[in-house]
């Protein structure tokens, strides 16, 4: 099973100290992600519930959304998941140089996404949709803002990994750390898959 990355990661994260053979850290991350489902679920439902509760003349989704633009940034985030997988599989193979490249690429793609979001927010704002404008505005910014904050935290973690790698503190034995942060990163991506469909693509 040395031929494939996942197996290696799995083998590395094999933890003989625990009663399940699963490392505490990875278990903790999955527990956290399970919990996050309810956090984002709550925000998404709030958005769904509120988006239509605006006056006929109020500024609404149709007035501001720029689907092509958001599609591109969604695509960017989606692809960052691919680079993240590569980062994980390269460190599992002990290829620190590649690992660094992929980490940086992932962080860069994430940053692109966040930049796109910042741009989107300012564009919406200049079109008259602020956080306080109406229920759609409040719910939209709260949901996407929360997501953006998650991405930002992910970027910071990726960059810390990068720095660790540069300073020589990252090794094959620590592949699991990269994997765990990868899990977080993919989760954030997955949340965006849902947000993108429900918030942007659903017929208004």
């Amino acid at each position: 099973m040395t031929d494939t990355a996942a197996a290696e990661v799995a083998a590395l994260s094999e933890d003989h100290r625990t009663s399940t053979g699963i490392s505490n850290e990875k278990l903790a991350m999955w527990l956290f992600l399970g919990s996050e489902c309810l956090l984002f679920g709550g925000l998404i439902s709030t958005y769904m519930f509120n988006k239509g509760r605006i006056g006929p003349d109020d500024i609404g989704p149709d007035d501001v959304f720029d689907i092509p633009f958001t599609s591109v940034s969604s695509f960017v985030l989606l692809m960052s998941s691919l680079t993240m997988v590569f980062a994980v599989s390269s460190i599992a193979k002990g290829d620190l140089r590649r690992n660094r490249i992929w980490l940086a690429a992932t962080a860069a793609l994430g940053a692109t996404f966040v930049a796109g979001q910042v741009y989107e927010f300012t564009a919406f704002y200049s079109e008259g949709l602020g956080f306080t404008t109406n229920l759609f505005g409040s719910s939209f910014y709260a949901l996407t803002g929360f997501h953006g904050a998650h991405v930002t935290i992910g970027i910071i973690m990726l960059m810390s990994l990068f720095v660790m790698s540069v300073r020589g503190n990252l090794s094959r034995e620590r592949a699991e750390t990269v994997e765990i942060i990868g899990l977080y990163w993919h989760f954030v991506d997955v949340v965006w898959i849902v947000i993108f469909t429900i918030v942007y693509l659903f017929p208004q």
Partner: protein
Amino acid sequence: MTAVQSPRIAHRPLGVFTRPQGSEGWRSWLFTVDHKRIGIMYGAAALFFFIVGGVEALFIRLQLATPNGSVIGAGTYNGVFTIHGVTMVFLVVMPMAAAFANYLLPLQVGARDVAFPRLNAFSFWCFLAGGVLLTSSMFIGGWFQNVPDGGWFNYAPNSGVLFSPSKGIDFYAVGLQITGIASLVSAINLIATVLNMRTKGMSLFRMPVLTWMLLITQFLLLFAIPVITVALFLLMFDRLWDSNFFNVAAGADPLLWQHLFWIFGHPEVYILILPAFGIVSEIIPTFSRKPIFGYHFMVASGIAIGFMGWGVWAHHMFTSGMGPLSVAAFSVSTMFIAVPTGVKILNWLATMYRGRLRFTTPMLYAVGVVSMFTIGGLSGVTHAIAPSDTQQTDTYYIVAHFHYVIFGGALLGLFGGFYFWWPKAFGYKLNEAWGKASFWVMLIGFNFTFGPMHILGLQGMSRRIPTYRADEGFAFWNMVASIGAFVIAIGVAMFLWNVYASTRKWRRAGRPDVGPDPWDARGLEWMTASPTPEHNFDSDIEVQKLDEFWHRKYGRDETGRVVRAAPTSQIAHDGSNTSVHLPSPSYWPIVLSAGILLVGYGLIFNLWLAAAGVALLVGAIYGWSLEPPDDPDAAGHHGDHAGELPAADEAEGRAGSPLELEEAQSVD
């Protein structure tokens, strides 16, 4: 306690970040990562807040003792019952349960510590930060000027700035988020502990019922906390940054808050009760000299309660205008929660049946729970009948219900736990005579306080009213209830006196030798010295049965009678093995929590303060991650794991298979 040597500390180039070494005195508490000390601190803090919340309750009762009461004004009264509810729920029962979870979970599964000791310390300090913030709302900016005053469920839109312009609700929103972080982190930590840190052979179905109930509680927290976090965030955004989530003029529907709150709120009540159920399930078998009746059903009913608890929340909203179909669905789903709960009650009774019952103080409390909780549970079922709940909701009948389940259930159970595990934690028993006396005083006072509230409620007394008219006919029972409350206070004071006097006694006379197992009990925690040595167990225990410790003590003779197999002193560890490597203390959990506290005050008062808090917080995270990784939660350094157990031998080491379960059942 003796300092434990930490033989091998990796000193990094960044010398600032060395960890505090096995220190003495107060510093050893501030920086500790030992789950037992953290548990004790949780317990102490919860007791402190219990007195705070109890004194608040006494003011409620003083004000309501007579018609047209004028002890405190309406505004203050609103603040008092709100902070009373918030304190009791979030700062008393939850942390008291956390105290037992922290202290006992690792012991009961035979581990050296929790999965993430530093995170554990962080949970405690973060909880304390939230508690300090909430409690300080009573005096910041004047006595009761900025106290939350929207009730503990704080319905929108009354919680908006427009209707609640003081800072009170900000304290509520921020404070509960901070305690929420604490609960979430500790839930993850404790789940990982139970799933991952079990000793050899400790399969899930060999875990004590308490471990199970605490595990279920942690799962409830894991999934319920984010829901209230969402609600609190929306509230905070509305209040601090003018968003519209609960702004009716902008088209918002205030019922959104109610749904989010109670989606959290109902699982929350099971978060409050399940730990007590677990404690009762430990105490009753011990003092009945019988194993728990229907172990698997006890576990399964706990799981069922945890599940069903998610599908009933809107029984708090029967009058909110949801529509008859929703009302019907939630009404019926709520009723059936009585089934798994009833299974528990009946199993406890069956455990006592034909037992040799010894009514020690812990046993009194446990039986008190069985009896009192049933009363509260039955009134709960009458609330579930939606049409009649429209008569009951927001009256003292509800107040009676939830004090019976919370005080008569959760709190009595937790107090029983204090008496039961006190010798384990401190090496001496609390005085039994005082313990029994205080139990009876509490129990009688409790029934006199909350029993009459059933009548008051059905006679139409609304809750949250600062006073009532003389001609409404509420005077008599209110006076009885108020006297009862002071009787409870005497009972609580007797408990406190007992703690003080018992402690003083052993200080003077030297610590008595209670031995590892003063009650002749069943769980693994009794297999090590009292007080529990810092490293818990001298060597790893291999578990073969449910109630392993008991089975090591007792066997059967030829005639099938249960007889001593070996004296406890031979089985139990004496705590003499000091060579176990434990994680060193750490500065960062408390620093991180201080950062969070600053952020909290900053959000309420001044964003610059929040910025300072963020700086401290980031610094603490930085320090945390650069700290020499001589503990298990430093990723990747498995080498020096605290609870290090020898690599499990796959062939036999894996906790039991389903087959072994049956074996566990069929012993003796």
